C-alpha cells in the first residue's frame, strides 16, 4: 500500500483565533438568527400578555398531539445528526450516510406534518389575517419551516459529499457545521412549541 501524503485543505490553514473560519462563521450567523427569532418571540409575548385583541385558539384547534409528535421527530433528527458526526469521526462513512439520510427524512416528515397542519387551521378559520395569533403563528412557524428547508438542503449537500467519498475522519468539519445549524433549528422549535401550542 502506498502512503498518501496530506494535502493542504483550506480548513487546515491556521487562523488567528484558533477556531476554524467555518465554525466561527456558523456561530456568528446563528447569533444573528437568535436575534431574529428573539425579536419575534418577545413581540409575541408582549402582545399575548398585553393586547385584549389576542385571542388564543383552543388546544383542540391547535392539534397539540400532532405538534408534540412533530417535536419528537425533530429531536430524533437531532440525535441522528449528531450520530452521523460520531460515525464519520470513526471513519464509518456508511453509518454516516445512513444517519444523515434519517435526519433528512425526519426534516421532510416535519415539513409534511406542517403541510397537514396549515390547511387544517385554515379550515378552522385560523389564517394569517384572522388575528394576532394567526399572524404570529404563521410568521414564526413559517420562518422556522424555511430554516428546516434550508437545513434539509444543507444536509443533502453534505450527504452528496459523503456519497462521493469526500468526507472522512479528518475531513468531517462540514458535517459538524451542518449539525450545529440543524441543532439550532431544533432548539428554536423547542421554544416555539410550548409558546404557540401549550401556553
Amino acid at each position, binding site marked *: 500500500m502506498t502512503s498518501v501524503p496530506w494535502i493542504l485543505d483550506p480548513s487546515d490553514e491556521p487562523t488567528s483565533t484558533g477556531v476554524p473560519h467555518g465554525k466561527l462563521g456558523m456561530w456568528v450567523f446563528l447569533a444573528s438568527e*437568535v436575534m431574529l427569532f428573539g425579536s419575534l418571540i418577545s413581540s409575541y409575548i408582549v402582545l399575548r400578555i398585553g393586547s385584549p385583541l389576542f385571542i388564543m385558539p383552543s388546544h383542540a384547534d391547535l392539534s397539540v398531539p400532532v405538534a408534540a409528535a412533530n417535536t419528537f421527530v425533530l429531536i430524533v433528527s437531532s440525535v441522528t445528526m449528531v450520530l452521523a458526526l460520531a460515525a464519520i469521526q470513526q471513519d464509518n462513512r456508511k453509518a454516516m450516510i445512513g444517519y444523515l439520510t434519517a435526519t433528512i427524512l425526519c426534516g421532510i416528515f416535519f415539513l409534511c406534518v406542517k403541510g397537514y397542519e396549515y390547511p387544517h387551521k385554515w379550515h378552522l378559520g385560523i389564517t394569517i389575517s384572522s388575528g394576532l395569533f394567526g399572524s404570529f403563528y404563521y410568521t414564526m412557524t413559517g420562518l422556522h419551516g424555511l430554516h428546516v428547508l434550508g437545513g434539509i438542503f444543507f444536509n443533502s449537500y453534505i450527504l452528496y459529499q459523503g456519497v462521493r467519498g469526500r468526507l472522512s475522519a479528518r475531513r468531517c468539519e462540514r458535517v459538524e457545521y451542518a449539525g450545529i445549524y440543524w441543532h439550532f433549528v431544533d432548539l428554536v422549535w423547542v421554544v416555539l412549541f410550548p409558546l404557540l401550542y401549550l401556553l
Partner: protein
Amino acid sequence: MTTLRSPQEPQAAAAAGGHGDPKKMVRTYLAIFGALAVLTFLTVWVNTLDVSRPVAIAIAGSIAIVKVALIAMFFMHLKSEGRWIFGVVALCLIAVLILAVLISPDIGGVFGGFRH
C-alpha cells in the same frame, strides 16, 4: 505504511470535531436524547394538569430552558468550545437580555394593572 502529519493537524483535528472520543460520546448523545424525549412528554403532560397559569408558564419555561441548554451544550458541543465561540454566544445572550429588559416595562405594566 507511513503517514505524513501536517503541521496544522491539531487545528484540523479540532475543526473535525475534537469533542472527545466519538465512541464514548455516542452514549452521551443517546442519554441526552432520552432526557429530551422525557422532557417533551413532561411539557405536554404538565399542560393537561389543573394548575394555575403562572405555574404552567414557569414549568413550561423551565423545561424549555433545560432542553435548550442540553441541545446547545451536548449536541452543538458548546461544552467543549473555547473562548471565541463562548464570546459569540455571550454577546448574543447579552443582546437578548437587553431585549428582555426593554420589553419588561410592558409586561410588568400589564401585570401591575395599567395598560398604555
